[in-house]
Structure formats: C-alpha cells, structure tokens
C-alpha cells in the first residue's frame, strides 16, 4: 500500500480555481495587461492603428506642449478641488441637518439622492438647458425685468468649468450626504450626551469632536470622489462638448479625441497614462493608510 502522496497544491480546491478563472483573466489580462500595453504603446507614434516604432518621450513632450491638454489639466484641478470641497461641505451639512431627528427625513433624503440614479448625460443636458441664455435662468430673470442680468457660464470661456461644476454637484452631493449620514449615525450616542453635559454647543461638538471621529469616512469618501473626478467625460460631452472652443476640455475627453478624432493613438495612450498617474497619486497613500496601516498597527 503506497503511502499517500501529499496532494499537489495546484489541485487543492480545484473547482474554486476554475470558478475564479473569469476573475483571474479579467485581473491579469484586462486590467494588468491592458494597462501595461497602453503604457508601452504610449512610447510609440501609433496613429490610426497601433505600431511598434518607439519614439521615446515625444508623445509626452507633445502632450505637455499642447494647450488643449494644459487647459484640460487646469480644468480638472479646478473642477476636482471645487467638487471635493463643496460636495464634502454641503454633503456633511445636509447630513448634519438630517441627523437632527426631524420629520420628513426620508422624503428629504430621497429628494437629495434621486439625481445620483440619473446618467451624466441626462444631468448634462438638463443643466445645459437651465444654464442656456435665451431659454434658461438668464432668459427668465431678464423676462422678469432685470434685463442686464447675465448668467451664462456655458458660453463664457473663463467660467465654463463652474457651469459643469454646478451640474456635477447636483448629481453627486446626494451620495456624499448618505455616506456622511451613515458615518454620523455610527457615532456612539453617549458622546453626544457627554458633550451636552460638558456644555459644549452643537456646532462645536460637530467641529471638534464628531468630524475628527469621522476621519476614516471622510478619507474613503474623498478617494471615491477623486477617482470619479478623474474619469469625468459624459458630463462634459453632454453639457458643453468641450466648448466654448476648448475651454471646458477634460483629460478623459482629450484621450477620446486624440484616439478617435485625430487618429493619434500614441497621444491618446500618453494622455491616459498621465490620467493613471493622477489616480495613483491619490490612491497609493490611501491604500497604504487603509491596508498598510492594519498590517503595521
């Protein structure tokens, strides 16, 4: 009777491995493989079809010398920072208001969150009309008599990004409010009682006690919004199409235009690699903080 060999580790829970093949394929081939492929080809001068003649950093030089890219980066910074700050502040305020055990809490929450269910295309179009000079808000106010009133961000190159910001805020603040509300409801009731007994006014309790306690919720929400910001595309296409001129260009649109419009894949790959970089700059410290922390702590 031969002594039972230790089963080859490969075949241990074989069916689990087979079942996980789609995941493995997606992770390795699509995510890892796709990303590496793009990075490699960002060093070639592929035009309509990918080809392997490498040109070093030419694509990146051209990228950073193109005013369209510079404008899209500026837009991304303004849009990103403002969206982060405003949605966190407004989201938290709304959550704090809703946390006051008021009546109609559910109705208000439903109202604030319904835009999140809509697609960016719908949001972009709606806000395009509302901000339209003849037809939208400006037209109305003028018809009410205040003829010199002007509020047409989508047609003014310097402030068009803020027009897009209004639509983005309308869409995403609802989610932030929910995340904040979940965070607030997670705080131990006794902390509130202790603060009341100590005579600390409501706003101070929020500012100095509750918000510091909600740091992890803030950070996670920050990362979610940030990764969404870098990908902004549909909203700009629907609302301004990058106009007026190239004033509301965003990186994601630069990539699509480069790849498909100017038929210059290399430039598109270079731009998307840059986008990847911006996401990693936000992500790695968070991942380290979130997971690295646990291993060390």
């Amino acid at each position, binding site marked *: 009777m031969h002594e039972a060999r230790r089963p080859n580790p490969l075949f241990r829970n074989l069916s689990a491995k087979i079942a996980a093949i789609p995941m493995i394929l997606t992770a390795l081939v699509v995510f890892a493989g796709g990303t590496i492929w793009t990075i490699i080809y960002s060093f070639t001068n592929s035009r*309509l079809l990918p080809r392997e003649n490498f040109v070093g950093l030419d694509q990146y030089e051209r990228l950073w010398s193109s*005013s*369209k890219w510079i404008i899209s980066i500026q837009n991304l910074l303004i849009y990103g920072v403002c969206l982060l700050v405003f949605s966190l502040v407004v989201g938290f305020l709304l959550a704090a208001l809703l946390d006051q055990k008021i009546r109609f809490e559910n109705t208000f929450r439903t109202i604030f969150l319904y835009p999140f269910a809509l697609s960016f295309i719908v949001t972009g179009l709606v806000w395009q009309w509302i901000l339209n*000079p003849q037809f939208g808000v400006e037209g109305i106010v003028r018809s009410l008599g205040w003829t010199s009133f002007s509020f047409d961000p989508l047609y003014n190159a310097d402030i068009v990004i803020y027009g897009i910001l209004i639509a983005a805020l309308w869409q995403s603040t609802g989610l932030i409010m929910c995340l904040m509300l979940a965070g607030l409801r997670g705080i131990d009731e006794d902390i509130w009682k202790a603060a009341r007994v100590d005579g600390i006014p409501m706003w101070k309790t929020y500012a100095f006690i509750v918000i510091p306690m909600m740091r992890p919720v803030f950070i996670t929400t920050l990362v979610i919004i940030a990764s969404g910001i870098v990908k902004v595309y549909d909203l700009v296409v629907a609302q301004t199409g990058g*106009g*007026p*001129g*190239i004033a509301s260009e965003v990186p994601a649109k630069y990539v699509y235009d480069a790849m498909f419009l*100017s*038929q210059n894949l290399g430039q598109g790959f270079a731009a998307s690699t840059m986008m990847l970089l911006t996401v990693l700059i936000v992500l790695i410290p968070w991942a380290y903080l979130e997971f690295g922390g646990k291993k060390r702590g």
Partner: protein
Amino acid sequence: MRYRLLTAAFAATAALNIAGPLQAAELEVTHWWTSGGEAAAVAEFAKAFDASGHKWIDGAIAGSGGTARPIMISRITGGDPMGATQFNHGRQAEELVEAGLMRDLTDIAEEGKWREVVHPSSLLDSCTLDGKIYCVPVNIHSQQWLWLSNAAFEKAGVPVPTNWEEYAAAAPALEEAGIIPLAVGQQPWQTTLAFQVLLTAIAGPDAYTKIFGEKDADLAAGEELAKVFEAAAQARSMSAKSNVQDWNQATNMVITGQAAGQIMGDWAQGEFQVAGQVAGEDYTCLPGLGVNEVIMTGGDAFYFPVLDDEEKSAAQADLAKLMLSPEVQVAFNLKKGSLPVRGDVDLEAANDCMKKGLEILAQGNIIQSPDQLMSADSLTQINDLFVEFFNNTSITAEDAQKRFVDLVANAD
C-alpha cells in the same frame, strides 16, 4: 430638356438590369449627411441604388465628420466593416488603405475610364496609393464661399458688399441694426475653415498651398500672414454673439436674417435651397470672399471596405459605378449644392452660384483642400488652435500666429 435626362437615366438602369443574373444584396452605407439639404442629396444615391435592384441600408451618423469618422474607423479596424463609407478627399483613410482594409477599385476605374472623366484629376490622385485607386470621388465642395443675407443688409441700410473689406466695414452698421455680422458655429473645424478661407483670399492661393502643403513655417511667420490674422481677429469680433453649435444652425441664422453672413463651404447652399431661397435674390454668394476667386477641391469620396461576402462585393462595384454615372452625379450635386466631379456633365439647372463655381473650375484656378494636404492629426491641432482663438478674446492675433507657426513647423 429635362425629359431627355430622365430617359437617359432610365435606359442606364435598364441596361444594368440585363447584364448578368443580379443578386439583390443589402449594402450598409455610412455617412454624416444629416442636415436637411444633405439628407435630400443622399436620398438620390439611395434611390438610384435601390433602382439598380440592390437595397440601400442607411447608416447616417449625426454630429458632422468629427463625430462620425471615429465610429466608421473603429468599425473597419474592429473587423465589422460597413458596405461603403464616406470620407473627405485626402488622407483621412490613408492608414486604412495602407493596412489593406480598403478594396482596390482600379479595375472598375479603368472600365469606367475614370482617369479621363474625373476633373480635376487631383481628386483621383487623393484616392490613389502606389498606383491603385481606392475611392470614388462624388462631389467637389469648395470652402471658399461667403454667403450673405440680402435681407439683413437691407435692414441695416447698407448695400450688399462685393468683397471682404466692404463686408468688414459694414459690420458696425449691422450691429446697430441688431444683426450679428458673421455667424460661426462652435465646432472646431468651422473656425479653421474661416481662417484658411481668409488666408487664401488675403494672402493668395499659392501662400495657402505653400503653408498647408509644404508646411512653409517662415511664410507662416511673415507679414503677409500677420494681415490674415488681423482679419481673423476682426472676424472673431464680428461673430462674437453667434453661440450656435452646428454649421446648419449658423446657416439658419443667415437664412432667417438674424445674421448677415457666414463663411462656409458650398454645402450651405443645400440649406438655402431647402428653405426655398433663390441665389441672387434672397442670398448672395461670393467665391473667395470676392477677393481671390478660387475653388478648393474639397469634397467627399466613398471608400469600400474589403468584404468577404461575394454578393455584397458585387453590390459595391455597382454602387461605385453608379455614383460616377452622369445622371446620378447631376441629381446628387444639384441637391447637395456641390460641383460634379465629371468634366463632361453640364448642369443647366444649377443656380448662378453653382455656375460661378463651374466657371472658376473651368478656368482651372483650383487649390487642394486641407484634408488633402495635411494629416488628420496636424489638422485637428490647427482646429483646436483656431476654436480656442475664436472663443478666447484674450489671445491676440500675434500669439495665435506664433502658435500657428509652431504647428506648421512640425506638421506632417
């Protein structure tokens, strides 16, 4: 007269019917002619193609060439090609041809003696690569046109100008009358079009060919060009209030008299026809801005991706022949407002603007379109420069010229 044409058309189709057992095949044809006039013109192709027994499947894609081309290209490179597709004359499909994705039409060309028929021959050269012909030019669109609304000038009490200087001079009067002097759409290609029409008119056609063709950067930086940029800045201020998106919306402003004029190719004429306006009475057309009368041989050509389906390939051949047949050329170009590519066809029914075009074409002072001279990549960069210039008044003519020179220096 008209009767004679109809019988000829009927005879031709009859002949086709007899020739060999004809399998009726469905052929999907993609294009970006979605405005009123354009749709009417493409319907002519469809009618003729259906008459020949096949079935025209329309693949119209909205949003002008900028939106449509990427979709067409990704379908062809993605291995799911359509039956036939529109491109502009020039190098847009260059790489597709090099990659062998486009069907070689040389045999059909020889049979139809396209070399002699197509005039000017430069159109066919844009379709040729290493001696083989890969596309069928179907029309000539010249961008060098200025369309003026007679009504708008009457309202402003100013005579209809005959050239750019008079038009620019009339701008203040127009503004007082509450009319937008120049209508320009927001899409990038429209602002570049306005610029190079000004360039050809003010600096002359050979300056245009040197800069766009030979990428002559010194000329681009020269005094001659500075004047052109001045005119462009003037055009910018004249078109400040026109915030419409598509070109046909801008044309619509001219038709309705909200705007005095528009620099646009002769495809705008289709819109005037659909709106029932008559050249000379309701609107005036000035080729080359009335300064340098020249015709640009821009326009559209149809490419035929390689298909492995026998029937469809046969249908492709029929469509290719049909598109260049005299009758279809006449019917199509009349509706489209463009000039036919066949030298041997005369268009009596054409209105006087088309006739002006035909005369200039006959005299032979023609220039190639930017698409024929420059790669899509460089052209898009120039488009971005001018759309930014037209929308951001803080960019002076000098800055724009400097950046234009860089672009020309390393364009390909």
